[in-house]
């Protein structure tokens, strides 16, 4: 009996060792290329960094770099606040949009595969450098507006906006909604993966639930809120985190661009580190707080 137990422990031990061997590359990489540089850059954000051939000189200057970033640099604070508020706004927009599209794509109709492929296309095409380039292409913007004007002289959204504004409803919240609608292209382009994640969640909900609700006299609208919403609430958490991470790492991000210029063009490593750390700290904090509140509302069926 005892012998058998020992044997099991031996197997477990062997499995544990094998497990460590399997994840060894990750551990090595994580320690060498992530933890070490992270500590270094954290330290560098408090230092005056000078580059000399063959070595790097660091001298402790305390919070000077942070003061430089926030008080002296003309752009950083502005970019940071702009970027963060944009992030909140767009992430919300992306969540609503992708949930809505996933609901539609979950229905049966002809050409569903094609539409799904089109919605996923931006994940492939608008990645990396291409996204940043699209930003300042005036010719494209001009062409797009020409096409828009040719399609309809009076746009419906414009009309609704004017009506709402003259009716005096145009408060701050509405302005935000208008901004998202005006930039619906950016939202649509950024929500490819989110749509697929929502779709995969929707497909796991069994049809019998809807049928039962239907027989009990539940309308579609009610079953959306009482069945669909709780059942895929865990997807909201995943998507929210993904959206924010994705948004914060976009290549057309102003803060990232700023950090890049400070680092690679001006060779100011200290301030660049300080900027990167404040930015990343704020985003992590934001993710932590929001996902804490979202996870409170997540409903787990099993």
């Amino acid at each position: 009996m005892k012998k058998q137990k020992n044997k099991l422990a031996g197997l477990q031990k062997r499995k544990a060792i094998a497990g460590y061997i399997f994840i060894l590359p990750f551990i090595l990489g994580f320690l060498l290329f992530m933890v070490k540089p992270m500590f270094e850059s954290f330290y560098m954000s408090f230092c005056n960094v000078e580059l000399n051939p063959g070595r790097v000189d660091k001298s402790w200057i305390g919070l000077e770099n942070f003061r430089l970033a926030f008080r002296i640099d003309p752009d950083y604070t502005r970019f940071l606040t702009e970027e963060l508020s944009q992030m909140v706004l767009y992430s919300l927009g992306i969540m609503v949009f992708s949930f809505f599209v996933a609901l539609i794509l979950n229905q049966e109709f002809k050409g569903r595969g094609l539409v799904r492929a089109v919605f996923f296309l931006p994940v492939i095409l608008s990645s990396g450098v291409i996204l940043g380039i699209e930003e300042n292409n005036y010719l494209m913007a001009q062409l797009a507006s020409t096409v828009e004007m040719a399609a309809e002289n009076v746009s419906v959204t414009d009309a609704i906006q004017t009506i709402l504004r003259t009716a005096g409803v145009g408060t701050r919240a509405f302005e935000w909604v208008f901004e998202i609608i005006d930039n619906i292209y950016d939202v649509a382009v950024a929500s490819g993966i989110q749509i697929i994640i929502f779709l995969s969640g929707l497909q796991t909900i069994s049809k019998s639930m809807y049928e039962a609700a239907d027989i009990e006299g539940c309308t579609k609208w009610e079953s959306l809120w009482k069945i669909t919403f709780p059942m895929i609430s865990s997807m909201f958490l995943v998507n929210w985190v993904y959206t924010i991470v994705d948004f914060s790492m976009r290549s057309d991000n102003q803060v990232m661009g700023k950090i890049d210029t400070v680092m690679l063009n001006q060779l100011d490593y200290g301030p660049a580190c300080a900027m990167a750390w404040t930015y990343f700290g704020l985003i992590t904090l934001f993710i932590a707080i929001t996902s804490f509140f979202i996870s409170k509302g997540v409903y787990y069926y099993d």
Partner: protein
Amino acid sequence: MTKVKEKKYSTYWDRNRKSGGYLFKRDVMNVLWAIARFVLLFGMCFLILQPILNKVSVSFMEESDLYDPIVVSIPLHFTGQNYQTAAKIMSYKEGLKNSTIIAVTIAMLQTAMCTIVGYGFARFKFPLKKFWFGCVFAMIIIPPQAFSSSLYLHFANWDFLGLVKAIKGETINLRGSVLPYYLMSATCMGLKNGLYIYLVRQFFRNIPVDLEEAAYVDGCGMLKTFVRIMLPEAKPIITSCFLFSLVWQWTDGFYSKLFLGKKVLVSTSLSTIVDSLGVYIAREQGVANAQVSVSTQLSNCILSTGTLMIVFPILVVYLFAQKAFVESISSTGIKM
């Protein structure tokens, strides 16, 4: 008996009357919704595809067409000149070759390593597993830009455990060489590798354990089980990880600029295409060093053409492997 019943409700309007008008109402609503859905989806698909279509039409225009307010979408003077110019500026052939080599090898390396690590996380129990998986999450969340500066310096004065300095007396400058990025890819630290680890782990967790246990009972070792039994099972997720990695590496600007700056890659040359255009035109006109001002229209036209040329290879990949891209994510059942 049944025949009578069938006859009783045979016509549509009979059945409609029997249901108190519900049937007709439902059908009308369905048709209306189908139309509304079509309009909505058509609009949104158009929204997404329009920039690409615009680029295609602009890329075939002659320069005079760009200034002509009458020409909108269909070029008046059809030309392929823009493609030639863009190819020359970007040194497209060389970039294509370099990018292909780098993207394919990097993608293969990253996929292989992420599969191994993901399998380790999915199938083995070991102490501190939760902690290490938390590290994977940290890797997904923390942008590499946060520590890119020290990584840059790290590779500028690269040394492995002080060994190199002891032998050669000075550290090696690995900046501009491809080695650092391969090292990082081999240790799952490349572009979005945390995501791939997560996807692979999710996939392996859905495969029944019995398969492996049978192999163990039959005397198959752990490595052999992984290679012979689990890997063939995981083909779909491996393919899609490879494809993602390939495509994202192809368009990546961040790591390419940081580590592969000296190599001619399509992604980096696209991001500097406008500046290169000015230099190119100056050289063509024989005005040495003087900054020739290039009209916005022309530079944007070349930019669009360049973008199309870069996008084209991955578009082909996507057309052939569309299912692998989309279904990988939905099949793994991402949960938190």
